[in-house]
């Protein structure tokens, strides 16, 4: 024993194989690391093609040597099981490791090391990396659009109120718990509307009137998604129930409505709301662009919500309906107390996806001339003083949207776990 049988690693020569294998893998990773971080090529004396593939070959051979089943060493077994089950997997593992190592230095230098954030004009951006000064200077515009600077506190205040009021549900005493649905479905939207109308829009109580055309940025994203979300949910629920009734007219109207909105892209719906819808209203009747957009998005998303809720309704076993009926419950009582609570619980993931889609769809309102975050970026990047910083803007917006959407999906996952009941 003790001989180094390279082609067939086994438990007998565990130590030798392990040492040589990990040495080779280590060398190969070190080579790529030095290459990418310190611009040092320790294999430069070799022909270029060999110099490039050498770390890969060394790593593959190293992993091959380390692939010893049931070695008795816990960490080695775990390593083999997770990243080194066969040659194909080892190759992919190496490629991913190399890719990560290769990608870190350029990304780091662009985002942090060579980036600029000081100053407040384009001249401050001297480095070869990102120009975060651009984001800093435009930050207020990205958040509040063309909303006048001295009135921005009104937007902030409105949002703080809304967030605080949204948390009422967590502090309500047990006694009033059953009023919560009423609160969230009816009272809260009304309060929200009043807040936004009087505080953000202004015009009364000595507050200056700010027209909706000046609203924009991320706050507009929130306003549009918030109202669309509130309106589309009850409408979608009604449509879902309508689609499941035995009354033919109600049923086919619902089906027609749902299939129509689901079949057309949102962008054409927005086009419709801006160019076609005014033709359908009396001439002296003026409806604000923002209101039209919110109605359009709500109708559009309601169709999707309806389908999700219908899925939940269909998933309930017949026995639930029969049991409720046998207790003498009527249609509304049955649905409000028995069917909907269970069905809505089932569709939490689906609803979350629909709401996520809604938030991700809001940038589309740029087609009717409303500039939320993505729209403001388009405006900022064509500003002659700040040409050439499109990348920074998009990276910034992507990070913001990613955080919002990722948080929403994680929250829905928690809700799903919280309300999960075994049946």
């Amino acid at each position: 024993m003790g001989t180094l049988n390279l082609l067939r690693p086994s438990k007998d020569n565990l130590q030798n194989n392990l040492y040589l294998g990990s040495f080779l893998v280590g060398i190969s990773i070190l080579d790529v690391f030095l290459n990418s971080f310190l611009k040092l090529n320790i294999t430069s004396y070799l022909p270029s093609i060999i110099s490039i593939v050498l770390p890969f070959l060394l790593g593959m051979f190293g992993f091959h040597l380390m692939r010893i089943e049931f070695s008795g060493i816990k960490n080695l077994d775990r390593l083999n099981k997770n990243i080194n089950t066969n040659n194909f997997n080892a190759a992919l593992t190496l490629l991913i490791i190399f890719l990560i190592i290769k990608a870190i230095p350029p990304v780091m230098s662009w985002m942090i090391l060579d980036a600029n954030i000081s100053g407040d004009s384009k001249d401050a951006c001297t480095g070869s990396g990102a120009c975060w000064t651009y984001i800093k200077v435009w930050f207020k515009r990205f958040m509040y659009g063309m909303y006048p600077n001295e009135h921005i506190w009104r937007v902030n205040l409105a949002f703080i109120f809304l967030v605080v009021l949204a948390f009422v549900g967590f502090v309500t005493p047990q006694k009033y718990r059953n009023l919560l649905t009423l609160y969230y479905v009816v009272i809260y939207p009304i309060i929200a509307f009043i807040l936004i109308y009087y505080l953000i829009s202004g015009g009364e109580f000595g507050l200056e009137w700010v027209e909706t055309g000046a609203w924009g940025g991320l706050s507009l994203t929130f306003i549009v998604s918030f109202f669309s979300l509130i309106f589309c949910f009850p409408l979608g629920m009604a449509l879902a129930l309508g689609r499941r009734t035995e009354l033919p007219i109600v049923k086919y109207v619902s089906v027609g409505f749902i299939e129509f909105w689901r079949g057309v892209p949102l962008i054409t719906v927005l086009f419709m709301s801006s160019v076609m819808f005014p033709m359908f209203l009396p001439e002296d009747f003026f409806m604000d662009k923002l209101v039209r957009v919110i109605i359009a998005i709500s109708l559009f998303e309601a169709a999707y919500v309806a389908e999700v809720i219908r899925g939940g309704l269909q998933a309930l076993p017949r026995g639930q309906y029969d049991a409720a009926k046998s207790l003498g419950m009527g249609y509304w009582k049955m649905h409000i107390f028995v069917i909907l609570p269970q069905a809505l619980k089932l569709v939490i993931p689906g609803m979350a996806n629909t709401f996520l889609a809604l938030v991700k769809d809001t940038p589309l309102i740029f087609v009717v001339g409303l500039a939320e975050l993505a729209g403001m970026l388009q405006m900022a990047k064509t500003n002659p003083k700040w040409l050439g910083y499109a990348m920074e803007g998009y990276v910034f917006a992507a990070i913001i949207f990613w955080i919002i959407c990722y948080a929403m999906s994680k929250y829905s996952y928690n809700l799903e776990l919280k309300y999960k009941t075994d049946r």
Partner: protein
Amino acid sequence: MKLKKILPQAITLLVVILIFGFFTMNAQLNMENRGIDFGYGFLSQESSFDVQFSLIEYSGSDSYARAYLVGLLNTLLVSILGIILCTILGVIVGIARLSPNYLIRTTAAWYVEFFRNIPLLLQIFFWYYAALRALPLPQDAEAIFGASYLTIKGFYTPSLIWENLDVFIYSVVAAIIVIIFVRIQAKKLRENVGKHLPVLNISIAILFVLPLLTFLFGGVNVGYETPELKQLAKTSFKFEGGLSIPPELLSLVIALSLYTATFVAECVRAGIQGVGKGQREAASSIGLNRKQVLNLIIMPQALRIIIPPTTNQYLNLTKNSSLAAAIAYPDLVLVFAGTALMQTGKAIEIVSITMLTYLTLSLSISFFMNWYNAKIAIVEK
């Protein structure tokens, strides 16, 4: 009891009629006041605008109907390219998410989390205004495989020049028909006699041999044209000849397929995970090997779960391709609901045609899918 059934229906009907009546009345009044007449006659008028990129011959002297067709074809082109790419990528990522390799699994999961949580419009903007703008100018572009160039003005690659292309296409169609026939025969043979024909190999052979024969006997010939760099002015260069893909199309297809692939990947993963563990174990225990288990047991069942939501994603991709308007790729929305609407002012007609087109597209695909679903559904007793 009767009243309970009739009343809600009557109210619904009344509301629908009232809304429609109100809208049509207003529309008529408004159009009268503004002197617009309703009608689709404008479709045959001369459009007198140009379209940057079109698959069929088109110039400003063609009709609006032709412009509509140009837009529709461009939409379909983006959708089909996007569907093909997102399927390939989605299947790979979906399978990678189930890989035993921790690194691959995590990388795939991060890819999905990353791309699906960023609005598609932002991704399209990113590729068009930021990523593709960082490409070299035509004169600085380096050749890829000797003859293709990726530049800020688009992707240029050699194009094929066919002689007697129709003969070649007929031969491909014929090959497909023969393959279907062979498959049916092979299935019969397998079910009746129990003999296994290497159907896949035979199909591939037919698919290659039949079209190749046309080169020898059908007078089919293929040449190619490489893009050449032309100097227009002192510092202005341009590639001419060959196949050119505009950056709008490129960024749209990249963004759409990267975004939709995340959803397809989740469908694929759910499908494979949805097949019970017992199925795999039962199959192995009757002596099927890994490949047979995958081909005969897992995939047929997984596909049943995968296909319906995936078609939904394809539909979404087709509808999302309308975002092309944001980066001025001449799709249906931009050409028709944009330029044509601006010129004619026929808002109701044009928006309704555009919506109807998308509606027809989605409804036909979903009818087809329902039919297909019913066909492959497990018949339960």
